Protein backbone atom coordinates (compact mmCIF):
# COMPACT_ATOMS: atom_id res chain seq x y z
CA UNK A 1 0.00 0.00 0.00
CA UNK A 2 1.25 3.46 -0.77
CA UNK A 3 0.04 6.93 -0.02
CA UNK A 4 -1.39 8.73 -2.97
CA UNK A 5 -0.84 12.29 -4.02
CA UNK A 6 -3.54 14.85 -3.39
CA UNK A 7 -5.84 15.32 -6.35
CA UNK A 8 -4.86 18.05 -8.74
CA UNK A 9 -7.16 21.10 -8.48
CA UNK A 10 -8.04 21.52 -12.13
CA UNK A 11 -9.98 24.73 -11.48
CA UNK A 12 -6.72 26.32 -10.33
CA UNK A 13 -4.73 25.25 -13.40
CA UNK A 14 -5.46 26.47 -16.93
CA UNK A 15 -8.11 24.43 -18.73
CA UNK A 16 -6.98 22.55 -21.86
CA UNK A 17 -8.99 24.68 -24.28
CA UNK A 18 -8.21 28.41 -24.07
CA UNK A 19 -9.11 29.97 -27.47
CA UNK A 20 -7.30 33.26 -26.80
CA UNK A 21 -4.13 31.15 -26.80
CA UNK A 22 -4.76 29.91 -30.31
CA UNK A 23 -2.48 26.89 -30.43
CA UNK A 24 -4.49 25.29 -27.64
CA UNK A 25 -7.52 24.93 -29.92
CA UNK A 26 -6.19 22.00 -31.99
CA UNK A 27 -4.09 20.56 -29.16
CA UNK A 28 -6.62 20.33 -26.33
CA UNK A 29 -8.33 17.02 -25.63
CA UNK A 30 -12.12 17.26 -25.93
CA UNK A 31 -12.90 14.49 -23.47
CA UNK A 32 -12.42 15.09 -19.78
CA UNK A 33 -9.41 13.26 -18.33
CA UNK A 34 -10.42 10.11 -16.49
CA UNK A 35 -9.88 10.22 -12.75
CA UNK A 36 -7.93 7.35 -11.25
CA UNK A 37 -6.13 6.77 -7.97
CA UNK A 38 -2.38 7.08 -8.22
CA UNK A 39 -0.43 3.84 -7.96
CA UNK A 40 3.30 3.19 -7.71
CA UNK A 41 3.54 4.13 -11.38
CA UNK A 42 2.72 7.74 -10.51
CA UNK A 43 4.01 7.83 -6.92
CA UNK A 44 7.55 6.98 -7.95
CA UNK A 45 9.69 8.87 -10.42
CA UNK A 46 13.24 9.29 -11.62
CA UNK A 47 15.79 10.38 -9.05
CA UNK A 48 18.59 12.79 -9.95
CA UNK A 49 21.72 13.19 -7.91
CA UNK A 50 23.80 16.30 -7.31
CA UNK A 51 26.75 14.37 -8.80
CA UNK A 52 25.15 14.69 -12.22
CA UNK A 53 25.50 18.48 -12.16
CA UNK A 54 28.37 20.36 -13.72
CA UNK A 55 29.87 23.33 -11.90
CA UNK A 56 28.25 25.85 -14.25
CA UNK A 57 24.90 24.14 -14.74
CA UNK A 58 23.09 26.75 -12.65
CA UNK A 59 24.95 29.71 -14.08
CA UNK A 60 23.41 30.76 -17.39
CA UNK A 61 25.72 33.77 -17.51
CA UNK A 62 28.76 31.57 -18.14
CA UNK A 63 27.60 28.03 -18.95
CA UNK A 64 27.53 28.68 -22.70
CA UNK A 65 29.96 31.59 -22.85
CA UNK A 66 33.39 31.47 -24.43
CA UNK A 67 36.21 31.32 -21.87
CA UNK A 68 36.44 34.66 -20.09
CA UNK A 69 33.20 35.92 -21.64
CA UNK A 70 29.77 36.46 -20.10
CA UNK A 71 26.20 36.83 -21.32
CA UNK A 72 24.94 40.40 -21.79
CA UNK A 73 22.06 41.73 -19.72
CA UNK A 74 20.89 42.64 -16.24
CA UNK A 75 22.43 40.08 -13.91
CA UNK A 76 20.03 38.33 -11.57
CA UNK A 77 19.93 35.53 -9.05
CA UNK A 78 16.79 33.46 -8.81
CA UNK A 79 16.35 31.81 -5.45
CA UNK A 80 13.50 29.90 -3.94
CA UNK A 81 12.21 26.86 -2.25
CA UNK A 82 10.34 23.88 -3.62
CA UNK A 83 7.70 22.73 -1.15
CA UNK A 84 4.61 20.58 -1.37
CA UNK A 85 1.01 21.55 -0.67
CA UNK A 86 1.55 20.75 3.01
CA UNK A 87 4.49 23.12 3.19
CA UNK A 88 7.07 20.34 3.42
CA UNK A 89 10.31 21.10 1.60
CA UNK A 90 10.98 18.92 -1.45
CA UNK A 91 14.68 18.06 -1.46
CA UNK A 92 16.60 16.41 -4.37
CA UNK A 93 14.26 17.93 -6.91
CA UNK A 94 15.60 18.63 -10.42
CA UNK A 95 14.74 22.03 -11.91
CA UNK A 96 15.49 22.73 -15.56
CA UNK A 97 15.12 26.31 -16.77
CA UNK A 98 15.19 27.93 -20.21
CA UNK A 99 14.70 31.46 -21.39
CA UNK A 100 15.27 34.09 -24.07
CA UNK A 101 18.34 36.29 -23.86
CA UNK A 102 18.23 39.86 -22.53
CA UNK A 103 16.96 41.03 -25.94
CA UNK A 104 14.07 38.56 -25.96
CA UNK A 105 15.62 36.16 -28.48
CA UNK A 106 15.79 32.37 -28.08
CA UNK A 107 18.61 30.24 -29.40
CA UNK A 108 16.32 28.17 -31.66
CA UNK A 109 16.04 27.56 -35.41
CA UNK A 110 12.34 28.34 -35.45
CA UNK A 111 12.69 31.63 -33.57
CA UNK A 112 11.37 34.45 -35.76
CA UNK A 113 12.06 37.58 -33.69
CA UNK A 114 14.63 39.95 -35.19
CA UNK A 115 16.40 40.69 -31.91
CA UNK A 116 19.99 39.39 -32.06
CA UNK A 117 21.46 36.27 -30.54
CA UNK A 118 23.98 36.74 -27.75
CA UNK A 119 26.95 34.55 -28.72
CA UNK A 120 27.65 33.95 -25.04
CA UNK A 121 24.16 32.94 -24.00
CA UNK A 122 22.72 29.44 -24.52
CA UNK A 123 19.55 29.87 -22.51
CA UNK A 124 19.41 26.68 -20.44
CA UNK A 125 20.38 25.79 -16.90
CA UNK A 126 19.54 23.34 -14.16
CA UNK A 127 19.88 22.74 -10.45
CA UNK A 128 18.76 20.31 -7.77
CA UNK A 129 17.16 21.40 -4.50
CA UNK A 130 19.11 20.86 -1.31
CA UNK A 131 17.95 19.12 1.89
CA UNK A 132 15.67 22.08 2.65
CA UNK A 133 14.17 22.33 -0.82
CA UNK A 134 16.28 25.40 -1.58
CA UNK A 135 17.54 26.15 -5.08
CA UNK A 136 19.38 28.96 -6.79
CA UNK A 137 20.58 29.88 -10.24
CA UNK A 138 22.21 32.91 -11.85
CA UNK A 139 21.24 34.35 -15.19
CA UNK A 140 20.46 37.55 -17.08
CA UNK A 141 16.95 38.92 -16.98
CA UNK A 142 15.22 37.78 -20.18
CA UNK A 143 13.66 40.34 -22.48
CA UNK A 144 10.00 40.36 -23.48
CA UNK A 145 9.28 39.21 -27.03
CA UNK A 146 6.50 39.31 -29.62
CA UNK A 147 4.96 36.02 -30.71
CA UNK A 148 2.56 34.88 -33.40
CA UNK A 149 -0.87 34.61 -31.79
CA UNK A 150 -2.93 37.77 -32.11
CA UNK A 151 -1.56 40.47 -34.44
CA UNK A 152 0.42 42.13 -31.65
CA UNK A 153 0.88 39.81 -28.70
CA UNK A 154 3.95 40.01 -26.48
CA UNK A 155 5.17 37.64 -23.84
CA UNK A 156 6.16 39.30 -20.59
CA UNK A 157 9.73 38.62 -19.45
CA UNK A 158 9.67 35.03 -18.16
CA UNK A 159 11.75 31.99 -17.36
CA UNK A 160 10.40 28.53 -18.15
CA UNK A 161 10.80 26.00 -15.34
CA UNK A 162 10.46 22.21 -15.49
CA UNK A 163 10.20 20.53 -12.10
CA UNK A 164 10.54 16.90 -11.04
CA UNK A 165 9.17 16.04 -7.63
CA UNK A 166 9.49 12.59 -6.12
CA UNK A 167 6.62 11.06 -8.07
CA UNK A 168 5.74 11.24 -11.75
CA UNK A 169 2.33 12.59 -10.64
CA UNK A 170 4.10 15.77 -9.49
CA UNK A 171 5.68 16.47 -12.86
CA UNK A 172 5.17 20.14 -13.69
CA UNK A 173 6.22 22.75 -16.20
CA UNK A 174 5.44 26.38 -15.47
CA UNK A 175 6.81 29.88 -16.05
CA UNK A 176 8.20 32.48 -13.70
CA UNK A 177 7.34 36.16 -14.23
CA UNK A 178 8.86 39.32 -12.74
CA UNK A 179 7.27 41.57 -10.16
CA UNK A 180 5.99 44.86 -11.54
CA UNK A 181 5.83 43.86 -15.20
CA UNK A 182 2.66 45.34 -16.78
CA UNK A 183 2.89 42.88 -19.71
CA UNK A 184 1.96 39.99 -17.37
CA UNK A 185 -1.65 41.13 -17.39
CA UNK A 186 -1.86 41.40 -21.18
CA UNK A 187 -0.51 37.98 -22.10
CA UNK A 188 -2.86 35.32 -23.52
CA UNK A 189 -0.68 32.53 -22.13
CA UNK A 190 -0.69 33.99 -18.62
CA UNK A 191 -4.40 34.53 -19.17
CA UNK A 192 -5.01 30.79 -19.54
CA UNK A 193 -4.76 30.66 -15.73
CA UNK A 194 -8.28 31.27 -14.44
CA UNK A 195 -7.61 33.48 -11.41
CA UNK A 196 -5.45 36.46 -10.57
CA UNK A 197 -4.68 34.77 -7.26
CA UNK A 198 -3.12 31.80 -9.05
CA UNK A 199 -1.19 34.02 -11.47
CA UNK A 200 0.30 35.97 -8.55
CA UNK A 201 1.97 32.77 -7.34
CA UNK A 202 4.05 32.72 -10.54
CA UNK A 203 5.32 36.28 -10.10
CA UNK A 204 8.80 36.30 -8.58
CA UNK A 205 9.37 39.04 -6.00
CA UNK A 206 12.36 41.31 -6.01
CA UNK A 207 14.32 40.34 -2.90
CA UNK A 208 16.75 43.12 -2.06
CA UNK A 209 18.12 41.21 0.92
CA UNK A 210 19.31 38.47 -1.42
CA UNK A 211 21.04 40.70 -3.94
CA UNK A 212 24.81 40.79 -4.38
CA UNK A 213 25.96 44.42 -4.18
CA UNK A 214 27.49 45.76 -7.40
CA UNK A 215 26.73 42.43 -9.08
CA UNK A 216 23.23 40.94 -9.23
CA UNK A 217 19.66 41.60 -8.11
CA UNK A 218 17.81 38.74 -6.53
CA UNK A 219 14.33 37.46 -7.36
CA UNK A 220 12.57 35.00 -5.11
CA UNK A 221 10.42 32.29 -6.68
CA UNK A 222 8.89 29.55 -4.56
CA UNK A 223 7.38 26.52 -6.26
CA UNK A 224 4.67 24.28 -4.84
CA UNK A 225 4.23 20.68 -5.96
CA UNK A 226 1.38 18.29 -5.25
CA UNK A 227 1.51 16.89 -1.75
CA UNK A 228 1.62 13.29 -0.71
CA UNK A 229 -1.12 12.35 1.69
CA UNK A 230 0.50 10.91 4.75
CA UNK A 231 -1.30 9.88 7.86
CA UNK A 232 -0.35 7.52 10.62
CA UNK A 233 -3.16 5.22 9.57
CA UNK A 234 -2.02 4.95 5.99
CA UNK A 235 1.52 4.38 7.16
CA UNK A 236 0.45 1.49 9.39
CA UNK A 237 -1.07 -0.15 6.36
CA UNK A 238 2.34 -0.18 4.74
CA UNK A 239 3.33 -2.95 7.11
CA UNK A 240 5.06 -1.05 9.89
Amino acid at each position, binding site marked *: *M*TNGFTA*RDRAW*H*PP*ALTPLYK*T*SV*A*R*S*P*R*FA*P*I*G*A*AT*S*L*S*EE*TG*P*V*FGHDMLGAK*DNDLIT*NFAAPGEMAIGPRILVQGRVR*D*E*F*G*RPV*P*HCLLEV*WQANAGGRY*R*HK*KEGYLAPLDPNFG*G*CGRCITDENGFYEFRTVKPGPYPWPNGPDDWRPAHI*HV*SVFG*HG*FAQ*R*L*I*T*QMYFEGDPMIWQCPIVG*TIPTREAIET*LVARLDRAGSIPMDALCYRFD*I*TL*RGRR*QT*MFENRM*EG*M
Partner: protein
Amino acid sequence: MAAPLTPSMGNPLSNPPSNPLGERFKESPSQTAGPYVHIGCTPNFLGIEGVYPEDLGTRMITGNPDGERITIKGRVIDGAGNALKDALIEVWQADAAGKFAGRGGAEGFAGWGRSPGDMTTGEFTFETVKPGRVPAPDGRPQAPHVTFWIVARGINLGLHTRMYFADEEAANAEDPILTRIEHQSRVPTLLAKKEGGAYRFDIHLQGENETIFFDI
Protein backbone atom coordinates in the same frame (compact mmCIF):
# COMPACT_ATOMS: atom_id res chain seq x y z
CA MET B 1 4.69 13.60 20.07
CA ALA B 2 4.90 10.53 17.86
CA ALA B 3 8.26 9.44 16.51
CA PRO B 4 8.87 10.45 12.91
CA LEU B 5 7.27 7.96 10.60
CA THR B 6 9.54 5.60 8.73
CA PRO B 7 9.54 6.28 5.01
CA SER B 8 7.91 3.45 3.17
CA MET B 9 9.81 0.78 1.23
CA GLY B 10 13.14 2.39 1.84
CA ASN B 11 12.18 5.38 -0.24
CA PRO B 12 14.81 7.97 0.69
CA LEU B 13 12.66 10.78 -0.56
CA SER B 14 9.45 10.83 1.40
CA ASN B 15 9.27 13.31 4.24
CA PRO B 16 7.67 12.81 7.61
CA PRO B 17 4.37 14.66 8.09
CA SER B 18 5.99 17.23 10.31
CA ASN B 19 2.97 19.49 10.31
CA PRO B 20 -0.10 17.61 9.15
CA LEU B 21 -2.48 20.31 10.37
CA GLY B 22 -0.41 23.24 9.20
CA GLU B 23 -0.78 25.77 6.45
CA ARG B 24 -1.79 24.59 2.99
CA PHE B 25 -0.34 25.85 -0.26
CA LYS B 26 -1.77 25.62 -3.74
CA GLU B 27 0.19 23.76 -6.40
CA SER B 28 2.02 26.17 -8.70
CA PRO B 29 -0.26 26.60 -11.71
CA SER B 30 0.97 25.02 -14.91
CA GLN B 31 1.96 27.00 -17.97
CA THR B 32 2.57 25.64 -21.46
CA ALA B 33 6.05 24.29 -22.18
CA GLY B 34 5.97 26.55 -25.24
CA PRO B 35 7.77 26.07 -28.56
CA TYR B 36 11.25 26.15 -27.03
CA VAL B 37 10.98 23.41 -24.40
CA HIS B 38 13.85 21.58 -26.10
CA ILE B 39 16.25 24.40 -25.20
CA GLY B 40 15.76 23.57 -21.55
CA CYS B 41 15.21 19.83 -21.66
CA THR B 42 17.15 18.49 -24.66
CA PRO B 43 19.61 21.26 -25.60
CA ASN B 44 22.10 18.93 -27.30
CA PHE B 45 19.34 17.74 -29.64
CA LEU B 46 18.98 21.38 -30.77
CA GLY B 47 22.69 21.87 -31.21
CA ILE B 48 23.17 23.81 -27.97
CA GLU B 49 26.26 21.85 -27.07
CA GLY B 50 28.82 22.10 -24.34
CA VAL B 51 26.43 22.97 -21.54
CA TYR B 52 25.47 19.41 -20.54
CA PRO B 53 27.46 16.33 -21.60
CA GLU B 54 24.30 14.63 -22.87
CA ASP B 55 20.56 15.20 -22.86
CA LEU B 56 18.79 13.62 -19.92
CA GLY B 57 16.57 10.65 -20.64
CA THR B 58 18.35 9.67 -23.84
CA ARG B 59 19.10 6.15 -22.64
CA MET B 60 16.70 4.09 -20.54
CA ILE B 61 18.91 1.00 -20.55
CA THR B 62 22.35 1.77 -19.14
CA GLY B 63 23.48 -1.74 -18.24
CA ASN B 64 22.25 -5.26 -18.78
CA PRO B 65 18.93 -5.57 -16.95
CA ASP B 66 16.75 -8.68 -17.26
CA GLY B 67 13.77 -8.53 -19.55
CA GLU B 68 12.59 -8.46 -23.11
CA ARG B 69 14.10 -5.58 -25.10
CA ILE B 70 11.41 -3.60 -26.85
CA THR B 71 11.16 -0.45 -28.95
CA ILE B 72 8.28 1.98 -28.56
CA LYS B 73 7.52 4.36 -31.40
CA GLY B 74 4.77 6.87 -31.92
CA ARG B 75 3.72 10.39 -32.67
CA VAL B 76 1.60 13.02 -30.96
CA ILE B 77 -1.13 14.09 -33.39
CA ASP B 78 -3.22 17.25 -33.20
CA GLY B 79 -6.86 17.82 -34.11
CA ALA B 80 -5.97 18.60 -37.73
CA GLY B 81 -4.12 15.30 -38.11
CA ASN B 82 -0.63 16.77 -37.99
CA ALA B 83 2.18 15.23 -35.95
CA LEU B 84 3.61 17.64 -33.39
CA LYS B 85 7.26 18.47 -33.94
CA ASP B 86 7.68 20.59 -30.83
CA ALA B 87 6.48 18.17 -28.17
CA LEU B 88 8.47 16.65 -25.32
CA ILE B 89 7.47 13.11 -24.40
CA GLU B 90 8.53 11.47 -21.16
CA VAL B 91 7.95 7.89 -20.06
CA TRP B 92 8.28 6.19 -16.70
CA GLN B 93 7.92 2.49 -16.14
CA ALA B 94 8.81 -0.50 -14.00
CA ASP B 95 11.49 -3.02 -14.91
CA ALA B 96 10.71 -6.53 -16.12
CA ALA B 97 10.03 -7.63 -12.54
CA GLY B 98 7.59 -4.81 -11.90
CA LYS B 99 10.04 -2.80 -9.75
CA PHE B 100 10.89 0.86 -10.17
CA ALA B 101 14.32 2.43 -10.26
CA GLY B 102 15.16 3.73 -6.80
CA ARG B 103 12.77 1.19 -5.26
CA GLY B 104 14.59 -2.05 -5.85
CA GLY B 105 14.52 -1.89 -9.64
CA ALA B 106 17.00 -3.70 -11.85
CA GLU B 107 20.57 -2.49 -12.03
CA GLY B 108 21.25 -0.74 -15.33
CA PHE B 109 17.67 0.29 -16.00
CA ALA B 110 16.64 3.93 -15.50
CA GLY B 111 12.95 3.37 -16.15
CA TRP B 112 12.71 6.96 -17.33
CA GLY B 113 13.07 8.25 -20.84
CA ARG B 114 12.60 11.55 -22.59
CA SER B 115 12.26 12.24 -26.31
CA PRO B 116 11.96 15.47 -28.29
CA GLY B 117 10.66 13.47 -31.26
CA ASP B 118 12.31 13.34 -34.66
CA MET B 119 13.09 16.78 -36.06
CA THR B 120 11.23 16.19 -39.35
CA THR B 121 8.58 13.54 -38.55
CA GLY B 122 7.93 14.19 -34.87
CA GLU B 123 8.22 10.45 -34.20
CA PHE B 124 9.47 9.50 -30.74
CA THR B 125 11.42 6.32 -30.03
CA PHE B 126 12.17 4.63 -26.72
CA GLU B 127 14.47 1.62 -26.42
CA THR B 128 13.46 -0.09 -23.21
CA VAL B 129 12.45 -3.37 -21.59
CA LYS B 130 8.93 -4.66 -21.40
CA PRO B 131 7.64 -3.73 -17.94
CA GLY B 132 6.38 -6.30 -15.45
CA ARG B 133 3.21 -6.02 -13.43
CA VAL B 134 2.96 -3.37 -10.73
CA PRO B 135 0.47 -3.62 -7.87
CA ALA B 136 -2.50 -1.27 -7.76
CA PRO B 137 -3.16 0.58 -4.48
CA ASP B 138 -5.40 -2.30 -3.36
CA GLY B 139 -2.70 -4.86 -4.11
CA ARG B 140 -4.19 -6.30 -7.29
CA PRO B 141 -1.71 -6.60 -10.15
CA GLN B 142 -2.02 -4.01 -12.91
CA ALA B 143 -1.42 -5.00 -16.50
CA PRO B 144 2.06 -4.09 -17.84
CA HIS B 145 2.07 -0.43 -18.80
CA VAL B 146 4.28 2.57 -19.46
CA THR B 147 3.29 5.94 -18.03
CA PHE B 148 3.48 8.81 -20.53
CA TRP B 149 3.64 12.56 -19.90
CA ILE B 150 3.29 14.91 -22.86
CA VAL B 151 3.97 18.64 -22.98
CA ALA B 152 4.14 21.03 -25.94
CA ARG B 153 3.22 24.45 -27.16
CA GLY B 154 -0.57 24.71 -26.92
CA ILE B 155 -0.81 22.17 -24.09
CA ASN B 156 -1.57 24.15 -20.95
CA LEU B 157 -1.15 21.31 -18.45
CA GLY B 158 1.03 18.27 -19.13
CA LEU B 159 -1.04 15.28 -20.24
CA HIS B 160 -0.77 11.97 -18.38
CA THR B 161 -1.63 8.77 -20.17
CA ARG B 162 -0.60 5.13 -20.09
CA MET B 163 0.48 2.78 -22.81
CA TYR B 164 -0.69 -0.81 -22.40
CA PHE B 165 0.26 -3.75 -24.60
CA ALA B 166 -2.31 -5.16 -27.04
CA ASP B 167 -0.66 -8.58 -26.73
CA GLU B 168 -1.33 -8.76 -22.97
CA GLU B 169 -5.00 -9.60 -23.34
CA ALA B 170 -5.37 -11.62 -20.14
CA ALA B 171 -3.64 -9.02 -17.97
CA ASN B 172 -5.49 -6.17 -19.64
CA ALA B 173 -8.83 -7.91 -19.03
CA GLU B 174 -8.25 -7.73 -15.26
CA ASP B 175 -6.44 -4.39 -15.05
CA PRO B 176 -8.12 -2.22 -12.39
CA ILE B 177 -7.89 0.97 -14.47
CA LEU B 178 -8.72 -0.42 -17.91
CA THR B 179 -11.76 -2.31 -16.63
CA ARG B 180 -13.14 0.76 -14.84
CA ILE B 181 -13.20 2.98 -17.92
CA GLU B 182 -16.81 3.83 -18.72
CA HIS B 183 -16.39 4.22 -22.46
CA GLN B 184 -14.86 0.83 -23.23
CA SER B 185 -14.85 1.72 -26.94
CA ARG B 186 -12.01 4.15 -26.16
CA VAL B 187 -9.75 1.58 -24.45
CA PRO B 188 -7.96 0.66 -27.73
CA THR B 189 -6.48 4.19 -27.74
CA LEU B 190 -4.26 2.98 -24.86
CA LEU B 191 -3.11 -0.24 -26.53
CA ALA B 192 0.20 -0.39 -28.38
CA LYS B 193 0.38 -2.90 -31.21
CA LYS B 194 3.54 -4.54 -32.47
CA GLU B 195 4.34 -3.34 -35.98
CA GLY B 196 7.59 -4.17 -37.69
CA GLY B 197 9.46 -5.00 -34.50
CA ALA B 198 8.28 -1.98 -32.50
CA TYR B 199 5.28 -1.25 -30.37
CA ARG B 200 3.44 1.66 -31.96
CA PHE B 201 1.66 4.11 -29.71
CA ASP B 202 0.26 7.16 -31.46
CA ILE B 203 -1.24 9.75 -29.16
CA HIS B 204 -4.22 11.63 -30.56
CA LEU B 205 -4.94 14.90 -28.81
CA GLN B 206 -8.38 15.15 -30.45
CA GLY B 207 -10.63 13.50 -32.98
CA GLU B 208 -12.23 10.15 -33.47
CA ASN B 209 -9.39 8.30 -31.80
CA GLU B 210 -8.69 10.81 -29.03
CA THR B 211 -6.38 9.09 -26.57
CA ILE B 212 -7.64 8.58 -23.05
CA PHE B 213 -5.83 10.93 -20.68
CA PHE B 214 -5.86 10.51 -16.93
CA ASP B 215 -6.47 12.84 -14.04
CA ILE B 216 -4.10 10.94 -11.86
